[in-house]
């Protein structure tokens, strides 16, 4: 096993990885920007190296500085966490060239999923269901109109390199098409450095499900059930649960097998998530694959009694997946509590004067916050992930509501109230909603 791992990330997710390393007896190196001098990932790592100023480009996204840190600290492997460089094929390649183990899939696998359009062709070619849409990139207005004739409105415009809810545009009327195409092209060029777009049928009443995959270097691939990520705002996941109330055993096994098939087709190693949409008639479509640890991974850990980060490290080290099949139990929900600015257009800032997390039976808190914590507007203002586990969905909802009541954060505004609203909504309780939950309020 590795002696020392560098964690190329910050805050909660860096601390999450440090915790697993502590339990595995692996030494850790934290990297930090000058703004994160007092961060807990710095406090709890065995070594910590300041790598640059607060701007991510100069610190957590700066590949040479991170590689140089691994070199001077003699780290043998790098865990990229769940954002920043986690799905950057170039970084994975440079790690390899620098004789550092990248804890994640091979660069070729990351690359093969980066272009969503090309990967969609691959998914289709191996016989898995995809959302009907254009057979090629959309070059002009006419291409788009052809598709619209076929499926009717609304349709979805997508950037080839879209990710994390960015690069998606839903079109309801022909009058909006021209402008939307132009906008998305410009935005895509700016964010992803590529302006190619394609078009798809809009799946009405869709549920969004991700299937967790683990693959080792000996070719063994298993799935660890689903995470229901249907509750979204602006295409960003807000609350997740496992298992999904929408799936039955048959559907779960079908989707699980399809996810394994897709992962096998690219000889996937490490932890990954195959994303699906399911329509109200339970037709499902494979949409994409995330080749990283996801923010909502703890709910799978709770239900499947597994440490996914530990599995990532074991796989990267060449270990085989444990054959022991864990039996899923209970129901888990995750809410991510963020600091919010009272002025919606501004980034949150300020000091968390009191941080008092909830406790007791079935509550897991993943956080790097503390009383006195200063929010840096250049980073994602996550305060804590609250994860609950209970015997069934109803109990899990009640437990989450209890946790939110107990959670005390002073000094900054938070998004706590939005979760209270969702969890007490009869529509949520009866699972009577789709990915447009917020749009149809």
């Amino acid at each position: 096993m590795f002696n020392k791992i560098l964690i190329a990330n910050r805050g909660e997710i860096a601390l999450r990885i440090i915790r697993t390393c502590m339990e595995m007896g692996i030494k850790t190196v934290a990297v930090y920007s000058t703004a994160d001098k007092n961060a807990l990932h710095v406090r709890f790592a065995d070594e910590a190296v300041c790598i640059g100023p607060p701007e991510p480009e100069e610190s957590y996204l700066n590949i040479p500085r991170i590689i140089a840190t691994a070199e001077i600290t003699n780290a043998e492997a790098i865990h990229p966490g769940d954002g920043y460089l986690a799905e950057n094929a170039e970084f994975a390649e440079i790690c390899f060239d620098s004789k550092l183990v990248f804890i994640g899939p091979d660069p070729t696998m990351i690359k093969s999923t980066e272009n969503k359009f090309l990967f969609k062709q691959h998914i289709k070619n191996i016989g898995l269901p995809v959302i009907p849409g254009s057979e090629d990139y959309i070059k002009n207005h006419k291409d788009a109109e052809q598709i619209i004739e076929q499926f009717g409105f609304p349709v979805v415009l997508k950037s080839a390199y879209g990710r994390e809810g960015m690069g998606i545009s839903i079109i309801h009327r022909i009058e909006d098409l021209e402008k939307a195409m132009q906008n998305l092209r410009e935005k895509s060029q700016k964010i992803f450095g590529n302006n190619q777009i394609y078009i798809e049928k809009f799946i009405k009443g869709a549920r969004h499900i991700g299937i967790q995959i683990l693959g080792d270097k000996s070719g063994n691939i298993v799935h660890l059930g689903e995470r229901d990520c249907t509750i979204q705002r602006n295409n960003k996941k807000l609350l997740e649960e496992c298992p999904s109330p929408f799936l039955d055993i048959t559907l779960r096994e079908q989707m699980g097998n399809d996810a394994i098939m897709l992962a096998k087709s690219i000889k996937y190693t490490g932890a990954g998530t195959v994303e699906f949409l399911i329509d109200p008639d339970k037709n499902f479509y494979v949409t994409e694959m995330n080749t990283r640890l996801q923010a909502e991974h703890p709910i799978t850990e709770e239900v499947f009694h597994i440490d996914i980060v530990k599995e990532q490290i074991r796989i990267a080290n060449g270990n085989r997946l444990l054959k022991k099949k864990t039996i899923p139990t209970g129901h888990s929900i995750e809410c991510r509590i963020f600091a919010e600015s009272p002025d919606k257009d501004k980034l949150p800032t300020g000091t968390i004067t009191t941080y008092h997390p909830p406790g007791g039976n079935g509550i897991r808190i993943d956080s790097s916050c503390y009383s006195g914590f200063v929010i840096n507007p250049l980073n994602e203002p996550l305060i804590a992930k609250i994860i609950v586990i209970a015997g069934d969905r109803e109990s899990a909802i009640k437990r989450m509501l209890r946790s939110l009541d107990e959670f005390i954060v002073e000094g900054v505004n938070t998004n706590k109230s939005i979760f209270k609203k969702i969890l007490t909504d009869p529509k949520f309780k009866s699972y009577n909603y789709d990915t447009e939950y917020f749009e149809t309020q």
Partner: protein
Amino acid sequence: MDLNYLKKLIKMLDSSNLSEIEIEEEGTKIRLSKPKQKIATQLPTQIITPYPSITNINPQPAEIKEKPEPTTSTEEFNMSKIFEVKAPMVGTFYRSPSPEAKPYVDVGSTVKEGTLLCIIEAMKLMNEIESEVGGKIVKILVENGQPVEYNQVLFYIEKP
């Protein structure tokens, strides 16, 4: 002012729980006060201090955490005249182009803006660090071959 008298006053204040003493008599006014408690005392001190710094990475990090970070003695310098040369990157610090070669600069060397001071090796690349100011090298804070982190102070240059 009788300094012995003042010394006694200081001792009295120091050993008490008071924060201030003010005495005014016959045109003389004395006011002694202790530092006001900073807001920092509200921060969880175990959380924010001390963390392991690159300057003292060693095989027993658990021990490091207990020790206070060694503070560089700066008393000997008039810091207002000192320019601190900080590492612009993470890497290994070298004072000379090769093990056999002479160091670029030594304590006592006079440098100009643009004078080569040292090399920081990162990802097998040798990055030459030049002086941003002219003056005299009065202290070298990092040993040859030692790793340095971003913003770590490498040299003191005394400006003329």
